[in-house]
């Protein structure tokens, strides 16, 4: 099973890439998606997370083919 992970804005620059795929076998929370995608980078303060384009908590469980996105506080408008 595979998760598609996206990063935006300053977080994308911090991480050094805009996306990655994450293969997995056992149930994963979005926190674990971050930790396995970025083993050497602590989650910065205030980072937001969405699954399939809806906001979720950090203990939300992902499913096969989910699109997970991490991004900094939004600054539109």
């Amino acid at each position: 099973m595979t998760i598609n992970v996206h990063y935006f804005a300053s977080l994308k620059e911090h991480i050094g890439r805009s996306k990655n795929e994450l293969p997995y076998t056992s149930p994963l929370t979005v926190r674990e998606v971050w930790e396995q995608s970025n083993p050497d980078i602590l989650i910065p303060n205030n980072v937001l997370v969405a699954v399939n384009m809806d906001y979720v908590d950090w203990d939300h469980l992902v499913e096969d083919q989910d699109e997970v996105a991490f991004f900094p506080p939004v600054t539109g408008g």
Partner: protein
Amino acid sequence: MTVILYQQGFNPYQILQDYESAQLKAPEKIGATSIFIGTMRDFNEGSNVTGMTLEYYPGMTEKQLEKILQDAHSRWAIEDSLIVHRVGDILPKDPIVLVAVWSSHRGDAFDASRFIMEALKSTAPFWKKEHLNSTESRWVSHNTNGYQLKTP
């Protein structure tokens, strides 16, 4: 209920006029229209800003904006609503965002338009990178709360 993202500059007054004549529901019921336009200033937090790039999350941005409008329609007696938001490269004085709410009574239009703007500012996935000169730029770190200002 309409959400539009623009890659290029837009004229908010032309959009409003066109929307009202072509798409507005029940114009004879409308007693109140509340409109907010956000434009780019040439300064922010003490620095001159020469331009700005607005990043967004294609798909999620539209989805969240539509949720905000649905939420506003469920909370207030409003007839129609519109969000227009710019993305990409922006220059000072360019419009960034247009919010319009049409209702029978003014209390609903005022409350709903402000609610939509605050919800957009805090939940819609847009990120501003300010260009300070030809080589230097910085991400805007967070939006402030528009309700935290003196009131009468």
